């Protein structure tokens, strides 16, 4: 039985996703003791600093998707099942910061497939869960997906591809904006469809996905790359004034939504 992680990284004019993937892979190697396969394109590999991935799979990037006026190459996650060389795979966003071995538990708690359906934000406990639209489903998150090479997992990824190819149609049905393709939305619909339009709790990772959200910045407490202690600083706006608040965290995984913050974190070790 082989186990490993797969990352997708395609550089954009704004961000060097390849370097982010190298940073993420080093942490996965260390904390999860897993090899990492990277799916990327020829151009992005020019950013390599020499880190050796277990495998590098080069594909043609799908340039259809744009965010803030620049290409955002996030289509193609549906290929993860076909491209993964492992029996058990963790599919992670490159801006997910692994600081513990907690993700190994996902293979104990699920059979074929698992993702997050609940999120929590550092410093902002009252934020509500995201929904596709007012009358649609709660969003599932494609940030962390664990799957095994089983027929059912294959069907889920095939369904994800089908939703991706018909994204405008599904956006009409579920009343969300289709201009920017989001894997989270496609996954939400694909998993439901693959499960016969039902909700299977066994497909859900039994803890929250932790986001670093708006007005929140993560700082590393020292420059050791594999250190797991951070300071989280939050601009709490109250009555037109900012009140700065902070906490200290350690040994906990989180997803940084603000890419600039992630880049700063990489620079500081």
């Amino acid at each position, binding site marked *: 039985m082989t186990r490993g992680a797969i990352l997708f990284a395609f550089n954009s004019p704004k961000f060097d996703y390849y370097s982010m993937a190298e940073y993420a892979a080093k942490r996965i190697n260390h904390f999860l003791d897993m090899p990492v396969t990277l799916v990327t394109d020829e151009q992005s590999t020019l950013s390599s600093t020499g880190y050796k991935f277990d495998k590098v799979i080069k594909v043609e990037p799908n340039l259809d998707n744009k965010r803030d006026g620049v290409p955002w190459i996030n289509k193609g996650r549906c290929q993860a099942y076909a491209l993964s060389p492992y029996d058990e795979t963790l599919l992670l966003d490159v801006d997910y910061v692994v600081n513990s071995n907690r993700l190994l*538990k996902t293979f104990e708690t699920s059979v074929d497939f698992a993702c997050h359906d609940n999120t929590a934000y550092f*410093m902002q406990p009252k934020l509500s869960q995201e929904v596709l639209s007012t009358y649609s489903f709660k969003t599932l998150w494609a940030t962390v997906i664990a799957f095994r090479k089983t027929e059912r997992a294959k069907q889920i990824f095939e369904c994800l591809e089908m939703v991706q190819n018909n994204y405008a149609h599904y956006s009409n049905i579920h009343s969300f904006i289709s201009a920017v393709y989001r894997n989270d939305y496609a996954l939400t619909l694909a998993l439901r469809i693959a499960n016969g339009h039902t909700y299977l709790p066994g497909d859900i990772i*039994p803890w929250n996905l932790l986001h670093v959200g708006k007005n929140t910045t993560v700082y590393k407490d020292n420059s050791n790359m594999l250190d797991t202690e951070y300071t989280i600083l939050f601009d709490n706006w109250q009555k037109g004034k900012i009140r700065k608040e902070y*906490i200290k965290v350690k040994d906990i995984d989180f997803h940084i939504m603000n890419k600039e913050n992630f880049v700063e974190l990489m620079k500081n070790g």
Partner: protein
Amino acid sequence: MDTKTLLADAKARFSHNSAKQYLKEKYDSKLTIAEQGGLWKADRETITLLGSFDSDKLVVMDTFNNPVEVDRKDLLSKLKAVYEETMSAWLKEWAELEGKR
């Protein structure tokens, strides 16, 4: 700039509520384990339920709301061990955080 200086310059305050929430996120997940074909949370309710029976086998609803027949003593012993270990670590980190602020 080190984070100590950064916090001092920003006149940032330690947030008790956010620290509590972070610890809950971190340690709640550690209380969940997969055992005997079910998924269990080592919480007060499950431990008390398992401890209140005498039989060797017991049918219990797991966190997915599936009934699972379990070896009661074995599951109880594992959940108690997870509970003790997790809660001790939780308390230790909470005390550290309170000390650092």
